[in-house]
């Protein structure tokens, strides 16, 4: 294979040639049904699970000591908790984009990556949820602040606040994503049920499949529901990061109060999400021998989406600076000057380097087709997107209208342990997912195999 000439991945087939219904099923199902768990799985899982313990440690510390163990204080009352929340929620967006929007656009290549991208969405939202849940230090209070339920105090949430909109957007997003994911899994659960050698596993997958038997009448309703879910998830995913951006844009602070925020946040979310999908897909396909399904064409397409959304994000940065100048508001001008050359200036320029300069190397086919470089760039983008949220949140808060109330912010060791812990939690969930559920949708892969489609003839 090493001597084959360079082929442009853009013209390659979505699935490597030679596959049949049987080989696709067996290849994907064997990862889940294999009796022996590969050693590298145990190793990776142990490391991820170990890191995830930091979440528990941090939460225990938080509940005993209160949020004093974090770096947030006046004037920076929003720190790592909201930075990490927005970062994780953003990462989740690529999963829904791949599963819903690319389905509606009939982008068949999405089929190989939608299942694990959806899993990534769910796990990223689960990580994101930790922060708003615990950011008060008194999570039990959050119940009546956030959720409209008839409590003994007769209190209701303030529906005029974007923070409540956020609760509705994120919980809806998590619920709909979970349902979408599960519906996609039902036929694959049936396959695992029929293929499992172990009685117990056959029963577990059987219950999960709800007795799915692949009836044409069932597929008929199923296809309709699946398409409707995609149609509903599309406006939903756009609304989620829009509402997240409202948390900032509805405020009056310079640097937050900007109309560009919703589209700029949505593009940033997709950008970060595709970076994470690449970060996961590149090792996954080589560890489990899935290069026939997640081909170089997939990586190439994802790199292009990442580059395009990266350019939208770069436009957002340019517009932020332009708005500050064009507004002729001294507060806005000061904000952008402080952001670029103030005490956090190094973070701003690091963000520009990670999010604007680095991804532009993907214009060169040679670099884009280098798996190692793509993997590196996807990590750089993840770092850049985290820096972006840090810069937006901290630089606007730390020096507001009144110089007497200025201050500096820095995350404490507990801020970092919570953040690193959720990365461990995310990886733990990914490891469990790859071991117990089919990482690629088997029934959807079959629909795109040559010979799968039957022409309808009327008459």
């Amino acid at each position, binding site marked *: 294979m090493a001597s084959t000439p360079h082929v442009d991945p853009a013209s390659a087939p979505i699935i490597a040639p030679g596959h*049949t*219904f*049987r080989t696709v*099923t067996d290849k994907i199902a064997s990862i889940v049904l294999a009796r022996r768990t590969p050693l590298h799985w145990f190793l990776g899982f142990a490391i991820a699970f170990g890191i995830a313990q930091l979440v528990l440690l941090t939460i225990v510390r938080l509940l005993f000591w209160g949020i004093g163990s974090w770096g947030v204080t006046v004037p920076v009352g929003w720190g790592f908790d909201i930075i990490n929340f927005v970062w994780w929620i953003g990462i989740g967006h690529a999963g829904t984009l791949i599963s819903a929007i690319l389905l509606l656009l009939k982008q068949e290549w999405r089929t190989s990556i939608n299942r694990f991208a959806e899993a990534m969405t769910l796990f990223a939202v689960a990580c994101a949820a930790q922060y708003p849940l615990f950011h008060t230090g008194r999570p039990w209070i959050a119940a009546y602040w956030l959720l*409209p339920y008839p409590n003994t105090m007769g*209190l*209701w*949430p*303030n*529906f*005029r606040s*974007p923070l*409540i*909109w956020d609760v*509705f*957007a994120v919980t*809806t997003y998590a*619920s*709909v994503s979970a*349902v979408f994911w599960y*519906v996609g899994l039902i*036929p694959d659960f049936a*396959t695992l*049920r*029929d*293929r499992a050698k172990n009685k117990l596993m056959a029963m577990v997958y059987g*219950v999960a499949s*709800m*007795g*799915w*038997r*692949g*009836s*044409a*009448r*069932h*597929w*008929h*309703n*199923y*296809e*309709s*529901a699946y398409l*409707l*879910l995609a149609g*509903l*998830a599309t*406006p*939903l995913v756009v*609304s989620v990061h829009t*509402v997240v951006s*409202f948390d900032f844009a509805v405020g009056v602070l310079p640097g937050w109060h900007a109309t560009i925020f919703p589209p700029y946040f949505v593009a940033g979310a997709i950008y970060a999400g595709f970076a994470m999908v690449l970060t996961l897909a590149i090792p996954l396909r080589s560890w489990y021998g899935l290069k026939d399904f997640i081909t170089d064409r997939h990586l190439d397409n994802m790199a292009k989406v990442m580059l395009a959304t990266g350019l939208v994000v770069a436009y957002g940065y340019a517009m932020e600076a332009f708005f500050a100048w064009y507004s002729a508001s001294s507060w806005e001008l000061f904000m952008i000057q402080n952001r670029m050359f103030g005490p956090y200036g190094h973070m701003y320029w690091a963000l520009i380097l990670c999010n604007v300069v680095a991804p532009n190397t993907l214009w060169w086919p040679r670099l884009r087709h280098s798996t190692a470089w793509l993997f590196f760039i996807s990590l750089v983008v993840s770092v850049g997107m985290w820096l972006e949220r840090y810069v937006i949140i901290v630089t606007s808060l730390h020096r507001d209208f009144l110089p007497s109330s200025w201050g500096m912010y820095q995350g404490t060791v507990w801020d970092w342990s919570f953040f690193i812990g959720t990365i461990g939690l995310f990886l733990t969930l990914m490891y469990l997912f790859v071991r117990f559920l089919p990482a690629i949708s088997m*029934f*959807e892969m*079959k*629909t795109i195999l040559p010979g*799968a489609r*039957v*022409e*309808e003839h009327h008459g």
Partner: protein
Amino acid sequence: MSALHGLMAEFDDPKAVVEAAEAARMAGYRKMDAYSPYPIEALSEALALPKSHVAKICLAGGIFGLVAGYGLQYWSSVIEYPMNIGGRPFHSWVAFIPPAYETTILFAAFSAVLGMLALNGLPQPYHPVFNVPAFAGASRDKFFLCIEAEDPLFDVEKTRAFLAAQPGVAAVAEVQP
């Protein structure tokens, strides 16, 4: 009346099952179902399945979600506990749009899924087709057409001969109830 659930023909090729389903419908069979490892639009066409009702259920769920979401906000902010927050009107309809938008999608999505499951009669712990050992292939790479005993034209011998005569048929099995 036979004690069987029906007769099931097995096919290796999606085209063959579609053609067999079409032939069975032409022959006058109505109580039948086809099984495939992935959705085949032509198969729904061949069986002349009526339009799915999932979309209507989804629409009804969405409208309910919109009314319920907006109604909750109106009732709690205007009727149950009106509170002056920053001088904004009790009925701040613009601010009520995002949560109502989300509840619309939430209820529509859940209605679509629960509606789909209900119309399909799932979850279903038992079904006779699983009594055919080869049926395990229906979730892998095999295609099946089952003519059920309830069909008025059903006759074990004649139906078996009809199914066995279909091009591309691999086997015909009796489905125990």
